């Protein structure tokens, strides 16, 4: 279990509450009145207030409480939950009755108890407060601040403090994606040089200890029987492919209801990109990530393995739509590339620049697949004029997509597993033939 750095909060001293003032005031006034007017009945009425005052004063905490809070997991998947835990400590002998924590958080966080308020009674000299926190959307989620308050016996004295904001990363949900076709360009015999990376392949690399994720058919039974430990045959990766993910973050279209509801265009792009990276990166394929139009341009250079997958997912959590098209105009993504590369562009295809970029990459001989992530509900709008404008734009967009498709760049809707099979087969077939590349 990983634990985030604890925040330590130390607030002002204990202050009397209106409840304590009420008890003291009623007790003093009624006892005085009883003595002055010789009214024993007033003394009876004053008794509970006087007893409460005496009790509260006796148990007045004089310590200066300290508060530490931690988040159980600083990185989770969207839809998963982690636990915020705070411990309020007071020196031994002082009496805290109970403490309350109220979490302020962004709208993509759900808490249990609902509304993020938890009350916990003290045990000995400390109070433990726990709230389950669930991220309902990918991104950097933040528990803005936690307001802590503690009260003494009879709620007579009050102490309060607040913690610093505590951000945590919610990685895109592991989307369902599988592909049967291989994007590897079959240029024939590659040569005498094998791949420099270990991975799935035919070239024997050595025998090593079994690791989680190894295939059963790779187990070397003879060696395992001798060493009494599972051993597998390691191989060098065959030809590797570079899958370049390009995410269009110029804007986020459609309403997002988080993991449990409808998805916006950026939700669909990020989840689809995450699923593709999750499919290829752990299998030894090189995967890279670029964004354009985002508030901050994120680029993850090509790499393989689970660490690369984690880097890509981390970068995805930081994508914010920015309506910034400079990255495309500067030609950062459209620069010529070498080697076998399949570019997967994830875009709602509303900004014409995205299709221009796809065309440019296609002209350079790069295999490009455009995944259309515009949600269906985007044209549904209460305002008739807005809905009409959307319908007109969608008609224009249909024409633009037809033009791109006619130029040989496939545009497909994201449908999860098998979405890309057909187009990847097409790309692989095309790369076997002679190509005209603009130099």
């Amino acid at each position, binding site marked *: 279990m990983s634990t985030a750095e604890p925040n330590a909060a130390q607030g002002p001293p204990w202050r009397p509450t*209106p409840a304590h003032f009420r008890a003291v005031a009623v007790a003093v006034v009624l006892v005085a009145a009883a003595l002055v007017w010789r009214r*024993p*009945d007033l003394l009876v009425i004053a008794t509970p*207030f006087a007893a409460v005052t*005496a009790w509260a004063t006796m*148990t007045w905490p004089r310590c200066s409480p300290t508060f530490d809070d931690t988040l159980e997991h600083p990185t989770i998947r969207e839809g998963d939950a982690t636990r915020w835990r705070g411990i309020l400590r007071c020196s031994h002998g002082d009496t805290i009755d109970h403490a309350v924590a109220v979490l302020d958080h962004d709208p993509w966080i759900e808490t249990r108890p609902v509304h993020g308020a938890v009350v916990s009674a003290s045990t000995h000299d400390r109070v433990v407060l726990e709230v389950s926190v669930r991220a309902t959307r990918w991104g950097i989620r933040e528990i803005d601040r936690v307001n802590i308050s503690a*009260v003494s016996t*009879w709620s007579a004295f009050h102490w309060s403090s607040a913690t610093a904001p505590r951000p945590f990363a919610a990685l895109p949900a592991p989307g369902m994606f599988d592909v049967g076709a291989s994007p590897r360009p079959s240029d024939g015999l590659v040569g005498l040089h094998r791949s420099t990376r270990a991975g799935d392949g035919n070239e024997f690399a050595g025998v090593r200890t079994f690791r989680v994720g190894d295939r059963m058919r790779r187990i070397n039974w003879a060696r395992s029987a001798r060493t009494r430990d599972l051993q597998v045959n390691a191989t060098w990766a065959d030809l590797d492919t570079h899958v370049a993910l390009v995410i269009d973050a110029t804007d986020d279209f459609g309403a997002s209801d988080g993991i449990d509801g409808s998805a916006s265009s950026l939700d669909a792009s990020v989840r689809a990109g995450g699923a593709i990276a999750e499919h290829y990166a752990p299998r030894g394929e090189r995967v890279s990530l670029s964004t354009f139009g985002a508030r901050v341009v994120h680029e993850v250079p090509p790499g393989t393995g689970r660490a690369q997958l984690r880097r890509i997912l981390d970068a995805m959590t930081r994508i914010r739509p920015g309506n910034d098209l400079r990255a495309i105009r500067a030609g950062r993504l459209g620069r010529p590339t070498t080697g076998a590369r399949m570019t997967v562009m994830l875009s709602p295809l509303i900004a014409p620049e995205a299709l221009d970029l796809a065309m440019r990459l296609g002209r350079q001989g790069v295999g490009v697949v455009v995944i259309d992530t515009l949600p269906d509900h985007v044209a549904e709008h209460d305002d008739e004029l807005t809905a009409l404008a959307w319908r007109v734009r969608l008609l224009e967009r249909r024409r633009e997509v037809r033009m791109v498709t006619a130029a040989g760049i496939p545009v497909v809707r994201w449908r999860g597993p098998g979405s890309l099979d057909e187009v990847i087969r097409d790309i692989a077939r095309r790369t076997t033939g002679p190509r005209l590349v603009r130099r």
Partner: protein
Amino acid sequence: MRPDGPAQLRRLLRVSPQRWLLAATAVIAAVGTSILVGVTGGGLPPLVLAIVGALAVTATARPDTHTALVVVGVVVWQWLVVTDDPTGPVVVATALGLLVFHTTIALMAAAPVTATFGTDLLLRWLARAAVVGGATVATWALVLLMETRRADGNALLTFAGFVVALIFVVMLLARASASRSTR
């Protein structure tokens, strides 16, 4: 700026069921005590009842203010004005009613409206209120004793008895905290 209607409705919907129960307990304790005082005193002005009710509701809505003090003040003033039998059982019922009101408001002030108190915490508060209620009954018993003996100047003697009862409560508390620290 005051929140609009839907915003207020949303705020009301966020209130926990337990909070509604505590608020009802506080209002019933205040209004019930006022009715009891009025009925046994021979007169129950609707205006006083309305004032106590309105103030009690306000106090439950804003328990961290001094509105609850005003409620207690109004009920005590009503007691002083209308009561004919100062040492009858109504006085102890009034004291216990005000204790319930004070305790409930103090508990409500200690947490936001969305929070829910655990059973252990409620039992702890109930036990404390029972101890204080016992001290109140003991004080009333002392008053009755002096009433039956027709002792003059009994306010001072009652005060002495009150102090004795208070010492008894303090001793109980000391024993309770000692046993807690040895656990």
